[in-house]
């Protein structure tokens, strides 16, 4: 039984880390390869999670309808939810990109902060859409009936890993293609890339949208794992900033690094709570988790200043001729 407890803890840890690895890969497309600052990952996270939730659940009926309000409920299978999450998240990114990508880099950063905060406020206040602050619960989990409930997380880990592997190899292909080389050229020197006849704006837009679609998938996978979502989850810390630390620690511009960083930082985040709670004096338990804000922030700052390559770092050559 003890072993089973440890194992199930490890499995939930791995599921969350793998979901974060997907976000980290998405950010790597945008920041790592193209140099686009997305400070609003939480927004795409939330949009992905809510889209999939609204697509896969039925409209509430009977007594439930008195407690749960949702404007859409399509009752579609899991995969349809994931695809819809990617599409809606991508459309959102395209709109932000059209607005800001012709301007200097900072505008994208500020606008993504703005969109993430606005989405959170919107979901909180507009209860007609998706039940407001209480959020949506009882989201369907794929292949639920296949295994006994106690073992379900093992199955879900398999599903998440399948998505992670698929996205990883697709990105590796993309980055090693001419398309990926243009992205890196834009990151290094926009004017040179433009002088070579590349439509810088269009490539940036594609990068932003591809990254956001991956984040949308991550959001959907999170929603069906947690089976309950509420706007309060998608905070700047939990939804955006931790992912920046993951990518930076692992190695900006390296997909392996993005995945590695996600697992390492998620381990730091989830296990530091345990240790912090052991050492803090009684009465400070509610404040102790915020030590992690300082911890994760310091890790990010120190890595950028001391070891900007991260653990793995970018490969010098990604394509062989």
């Amino acid at each position, binding site marked *: 039984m003890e072993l089973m407890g440890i194992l199930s803890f490890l499995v939930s840890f791995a599921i969350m880390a793998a979901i974060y690895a997907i976000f980290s890969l998405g950010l790597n497309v945008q920041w790592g390869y193209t140099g686009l600052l997305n*400070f609003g990952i939480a927004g795409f996270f939330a949009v992905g999670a809510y889209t999939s939730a609204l697509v896969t659940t039925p409209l509430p009926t009977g007594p439930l309808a008195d407690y749960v309000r949702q404007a859409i409920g399509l009752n579609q299978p899991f995969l349809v939810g994931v695809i819809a999450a990617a599409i809606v998240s991508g459309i959102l990114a395209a709109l932000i990109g059209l607005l*800001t990508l012709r301007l200097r*880099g900072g505008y994208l950063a*500020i*606008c993504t*902060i703005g969109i993430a905060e606005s989405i959170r406020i919107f979901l909180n206040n507009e209860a007609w859409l998706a039940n407001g602050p209480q959020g949506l619960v009882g989201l369907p989990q794929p292949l639920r009936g296949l295994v006994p409930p106690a073992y379900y997380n093992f199955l879900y880990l398999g599903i998440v890993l399948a998505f992670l592997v698929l996205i990883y190899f697709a990105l590796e292909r993309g980055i090693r293609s001419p398309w990926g080389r243009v992205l890196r050229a834009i990151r290094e020197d926009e004017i040179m890339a433009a002088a070579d006849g590349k439509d810088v704006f269009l490539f940036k837009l594609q990068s932003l949208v591809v990254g956001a679609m991956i984040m949308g998938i991550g959001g959907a996978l999170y929603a069906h794992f947690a089976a309950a979502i509420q706007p309060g989850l998608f905070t700047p810390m939990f939804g955006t900033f931790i992912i920046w630390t993951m990518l930076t620690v692992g190695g900006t511009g390296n997909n392996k690094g993005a995945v590695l960083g996600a697992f390492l930082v998620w381990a730091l985040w989830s296990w530091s709570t345990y240790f912090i709670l052991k050492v803090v004096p009684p009465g400070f338990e509610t*404040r102790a988790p915020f030590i992690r804000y300082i911890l994760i922030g310091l890790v990010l700052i120190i890595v950028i200043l001391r070891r*900007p390559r991260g653990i793995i770092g970018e490969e010098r050559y990604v394509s062989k001729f």
Partner: protein
Amino acid sequence: MASLIVSGIVLGSILTLGSIGLTLIWGILNLFNCAHGDQMTIGAYIALATVALFSNLGILQGKVGPFSFTWGLLVAFIPAIVVSAILAILLDQWCYRPLRERGIPMIVGFILSIGVAFVLRGIVYVIWGADYYSYSKGVRPTITGLPLGITLRTDDVFIMVVAWGLLALVYLFIMKTKTGKALRAVADNPTLAGITGIDTERMTILAWAIAGALIAVAGILWGIEAQLRPEMGWLFLLPLFAAVILGGQGSFTGALVGSMILGIVQQVSTAWLLPTYKPAVAFMVMVLTLLLRPQGIFGRR
């Protein structure tokens, strides 16, 4: 409606104190300082700690004239300003100067500033917790008998006097002194200013000190107007950026006008929208600016 506009002017005055520092740093370093809001929180909480200290010592407990706060808070402006200015300089020395020296693009500094923001907020959360605080308990006196049914707190008058007085000082300093001229030159074109013999590093430190001092005052004033909470600065960041973008990057007048418009728009929007939508309203102003006039009202291409 008239009341909302007046409270918008009060909010705009506070925003101006923040946006001037933001636009100054943006002009000089090309840095969007995402920690600016949380530096504001730190300033406000330093004043809170000072007020608590006076209250423990039992000194400076009397209320100032018709206002809601004590003499202790007036004195507390000093440590808050000093600590905030020093903090700003140290942050620059530790985080952003290494980037300048190694010639790393300042876009990396944006990420650092987000890291700084979370460290600062984490410190506030750990020391003070997630509770809301006020500088003083008790009623906040209002001024009665104003035309158009305007309700105005006595505190609002204090806020405007402090904010505008300080702005006048900063304006005189930047526009009329030689150092201020050098500062403007660096903000306009750092390389050119360096060639003409201006010590750009010194001017950079000065800019951080000014930005840190002003944002601390903004934090205290907002603490008087509303309440202190760890997220107060983060919620100010979007309106601040919106004000800077609306006014035009690097422009003193732009920061002022942008902030006043933002303050009024945010407050008037509460006539139709829930107050929690204020950051989203700021974002909408930002979006409209970028659509219609990306360089801002007073900006140059």
